[in-house]
């Protein structure tokens, strides 16, 4: 197991380094396809081993079902992102937006980013987790700024500044947590998650509470919870589309994962009441704040970015309700959202590449230019807004159901109605772009097979997930929910 994990960590690094050495586009693509494919395979193997053998823990590494859920997200998304990048970035080179040289840098950074995300998920120490999370910011910062135009620089600057400030607060929280651990006499296993969890009930409640506030704000910033979400639409809209997909799908999930890991300890120490109320409040706020930006929006990728804010809100609500059903649904929602949102970002990438703009106002009639893509786009938007029969609906419905069961029925009802506001905005712009007459200068064209594979794969998962979850996945999720609830 240990070897597998280390392999999973080393592979992206190796692939990244090889990419740097390679400047021809053909081998570059082959290396990356191979690299990310193997990495994903290794990750899936890790997940499988986890389901069979249970937890794995060593001094610094730790993998359980909760990490398995997230590893699945990262495995899938890094693979689809690489797959999508192959044709997308080549088109960018072809369009003269980036140079050949930059391409190898792009892949190197992408692999670095994957490495950072994987390391977040496999370390078992809260301090190292912090380091890895900050690592993801830094690895992705240059990807966000990749086009090095004014907008991209602005987005990257804000991204780094806000996230670093946020993450500093998280470090503060982690230090306070460590202090609590030390003062309870657990200095021999500093910030080890398992150790902390076992000693959680003995930790000083008032200190943990303060630690929790900082951790929540800190990782919440990274996870895009309102009102710390402000970097998110900028970064998501300016990054190259595959990276946007990764940011939205995988990075936010990783940040939430770290938050959840801390939450388990905090809830073990101070009970659930305070944390739940704060989480519910932040979740609701995220949904509410996303609405006006979705209703009135001019940039297709920002539209999707705000939808991510909303979904992080929904997931937080699920965590805030804190019943087994809610947590199960929240975890499922993380997966569903990641898959759907990344595919939407890929599609937005194809569209904006085709129309040479991200402005919603200038995009019409995708259906007559790229019929298949338009269909998938509408399906994706329907899915992301929580329409049945797609998998996101199931998890959303379960979260709200859990709210009703937990006597938050009014909150649940309000959430349902607020989500229709998101639906109104998303659907409005989606239809505006998909249908109507296309521009003269935009010609009907085919989409590169690798990009299409990435998109179709994601959409297929979303559709099938609406009806059927393999028992294996279901068990992993159930076990992960138990872990979140302190089991």
């Amino acid at each position, binding site marked *: 197991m240990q070897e597998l994990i280390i392999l999973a960590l080393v592979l992206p690094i190796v692939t990244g380094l090889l990419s740097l050495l390679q400047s021809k586009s053909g081998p570059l693509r082959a290396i990356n396809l191979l690299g990310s494919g193997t990495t994903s395979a290794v990750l899936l193997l890790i997940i499988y081993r986890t389901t069979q053998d249970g937890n794995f823990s060593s001094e610094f590494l730790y993998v359980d079902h909760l990490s398995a859920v997230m590893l699945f997200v990262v495995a899938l998304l890094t693979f689809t992102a690489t797959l999508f990048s192959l044709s997308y970035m080549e088109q960018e080179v072809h369009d003269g937006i980036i140079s050949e040289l930059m391409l190898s840098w792009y892949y190197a950074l992408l692999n670095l980013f994957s490495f950072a995300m994987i390391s977040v998920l496999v370390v078992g120490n809260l301090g190292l987790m912090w380091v890895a999370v900050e690592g993801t910011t830094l690895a992705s910062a240059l990807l966000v700024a990749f086009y090095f135009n004014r907008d991209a620089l602005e987005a990257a*600057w*804000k991204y780094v*500044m*806000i996230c670093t*400030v946020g993450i500093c*607060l998280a470090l503060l929280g982690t230090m306070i947590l460590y202090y609590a651990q030390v003062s309870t006499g657990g200095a021999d296993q500093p910030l080890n998650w398992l150790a902390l969890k076992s000693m959680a009930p003995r930790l000083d409640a*008032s200190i943990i*509470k*303060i630690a*929790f*506030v900082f951790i*929540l*704000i800190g990782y919440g910033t990274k996870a895009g919870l309102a*009102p*710390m979400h*402000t970097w998110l*639409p900028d970064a998501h809209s300016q990054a190259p589309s595959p990276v946007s997909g990764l940011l939205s799908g995988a990075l936010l999930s990783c940040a939430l994962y770290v938050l959840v890991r801390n939450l388990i300890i905090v809830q073990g120490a101070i009970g659930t009441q*305070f944390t739940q109320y*704060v989480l519910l409040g932040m979740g609701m706020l995220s949904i509410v*704040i996303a*609405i*006006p*930006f979705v*209703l*009135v929006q001019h940039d297709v990728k920002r539209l999707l970015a705000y939808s991510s804010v909303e979904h992080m809100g929904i997931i937080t609500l699920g965590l805030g309700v804190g019943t087994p059903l809610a947590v199960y649904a929240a975890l*499922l929602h993380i997966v569903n959202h990641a898959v759907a949102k990344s595919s939407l970002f890929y599609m937005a990438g194809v569209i904006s590449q085709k129309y040479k703009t991200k402005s919603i106002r200038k995009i019409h009639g995708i*259906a007559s230019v790229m019929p298949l893509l338009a269909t998938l786009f509408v399906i994706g938007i329907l899915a992301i*807004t929580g*329409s*049945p*029969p797609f*998998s996101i609906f*199931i998890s959303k*419905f379960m979260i*709200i*159901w859990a709210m*009703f*069961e937990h006597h938050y*029925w009014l909150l*649940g*009802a309000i959430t*349902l*109605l607020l*989500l*229709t*506001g998101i*639906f*109104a905005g998303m*659907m*409005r712009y989606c*239809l*505006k772009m998909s*249908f*109507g*007459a296309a521009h003269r200068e935009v010609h009907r064209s085919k989409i590169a097979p690798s990009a299409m594979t990435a998109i179709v794969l994601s959409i297929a998962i979303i559709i099938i997930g609406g*009806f*059927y*979850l393999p*028992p294996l996945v*279901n068990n992993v999720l159930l076990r992960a929910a138990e872990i979140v609830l302190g089991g």
Partner: protein
Amino acid sequence: MLIEQLYLVSLGLFILGSCSPMFTKGSAKATNYLAHGLATLGCVVTIVLAISVLLTGNHTVAFSLGAPIGLIKARIDYLAAYFLLAFGIVGVAASVYAIGYSREYYIHRLALMAALYNAFLLSIALVLTISQVLAFVIVWELMTVVSFCLVNHEYEKTGNTSAAYLYILMTHIGTAFIGIAFLLLATAANTLDFELLKTGALTGMLRNVVFLCALIGFGTKAGVIPLHIWLPEAHPAAPSHVSAMMSGIMIKTAIYGMSRFFLEFLGAGPEWWGQLVLILAIISSVFGVLYALMEHDLKRLLAYHSVENIGIILLGVGAGMVFMSKGLPVLAALAWAAGLYHVFNHAVFKSLLFLGSGAVLYATHTKDIEHLGGLIKKMPYTALFFLIGAAAISALPPLNGFVSEWLTFQALFFLPQAVGGLVGKLWSVILIALLGLTGALAGACFVKAFGVTFLAKPRSKKAEQATEVPGTMLVAMGFLSLVCVAAGVWPQWMLAILQKVLSSYAGIAAASLFQNSDWYAIAFQAQQAGGVLAMPVVVIMVIIGFGVAVVFARLAGSPKKDAGETWTCGIIPNARMEYTATGFAEPIRRAFGRVLNPVDVVIADKSRNPYHGVKITIHVHITHYISELMYRPVSNGLYTFANYLRKIQAGSLQLYIGYIMAVTVIVLIIGTRW
């Protein structure tokens, strides 16, 4: 066992139909016949299924889907079977019709349309049978999404996409409310199974919330005013056989949902529930028909009539709820039977009319009745069938619309037994008078629709060149016309079914309701209240009268018949002299000016001759107060507010960090003060 097989076979046929375009290798003709043939078969099987359930009793089909949905139950009880019957009958007609009608779509993504059409039928069949909350919401939204795609199918035409958007948005909001209602019930009963939902103990307040949410949610789908705004946009935008399914059956699934809630899950509630439904119902019916009268787009006109008829259905439902709450089980049964019978009747004649309008569209490629005329000579059968539909929807005897309206009138007439005193009588009589008004307006509207479309001379080239539509379309319409007549002349069969449907619910005693009926007359008795109607006798009377008229006419031999042009004060008549639809409705437009607020804009083109203009254009429209006063301000306000709120993302890094600090401080303070 048989039932289960039938059920699975019908679903399987729809699924097969949905997939069939994949196997036809792009041959439009093969796709058309295969997909719609399978749909027809599926509907036939559904009819058989419904009848066998009605004969043998309730059935439950359970199958497990595993996580995340869990065990799914499809319960085909009498209520579901009744709706399935209506679905099957309309579905058979629409599917057969589609075989002919789809020729229009050979170059317009026929494969997609045929697949979606089958999926649409599948989703309706599922909505009517699934009895598990989560699965129900899924198939409910599936139905919306599929029909949304069908509404949007001809997205090249302006307005269709925005109609589809409005449709899916409104129904999505409706679904949110339905979700709330279901979740409240489900958490109270701690189950997702429909059969057990009624066991949940809810406080009075929560019961009211459930009621209101169900009413709003299903009311949106049904098109109850003021939630109807999507309906007149979406129904005309869809292909005609789909419009027929949407108007005939899909909006009835909302009535199905209401019936489930108000009959089964909630049972008898406070009186104001029923009264609220009655108020909404009467507003829907009067305004629905008034707006219909103002339309001269044939399909929009029909769509507004759907609003009206949903109102009439809900009059029965509302009266039934009032009777239930007042402990008058037999009268409640009468009122519910009236409402549910109108469900069936409206399904039949409205889909007939939509199919007829589709035939007109097929032949002339226009829906604007001002450009039609004289089609009765080119398309005699279509005209006849449309006329039968028009007469049925105008509640003319001896067709089916009359019978259900008669039952509704009777139910409203006995309303004073539930609501005592003068108030009850006044309320009852006002409702009856307004329902009468609705009927008269519907009559006026269909004289207009039928007369302007089919009679006199063609008003345009398109109408002149029209020819009769293909046989499959005529067969479908003829079948529905027959059903219209049959359900009107011999309503006993359907009422016996309804008696069965209703007898299983608490607060309703349907068993003895129609026991005095003869083979030729329906009669109901509830304590002192009673009523009787013999439709065959009415028919015979009219036939005798007709015979007498013929005898009288032949009394004096057979005088000569000369052909001579229509009298137009001595000049040769042409089509432009004919009375237009707008002109026909003008007196009513003016008389109801207070609520319709008509606006006339006269534009005189004086460019060539400054003294008397060369060309005068008149734009006539009315003000839809509900969208003007309710939806527009809300949406404008929402967007203004959204624009205002967007200022929080002002682009300033310092501000953003300020947010983080502020929220940290706030949460810290909350945390330490907790």
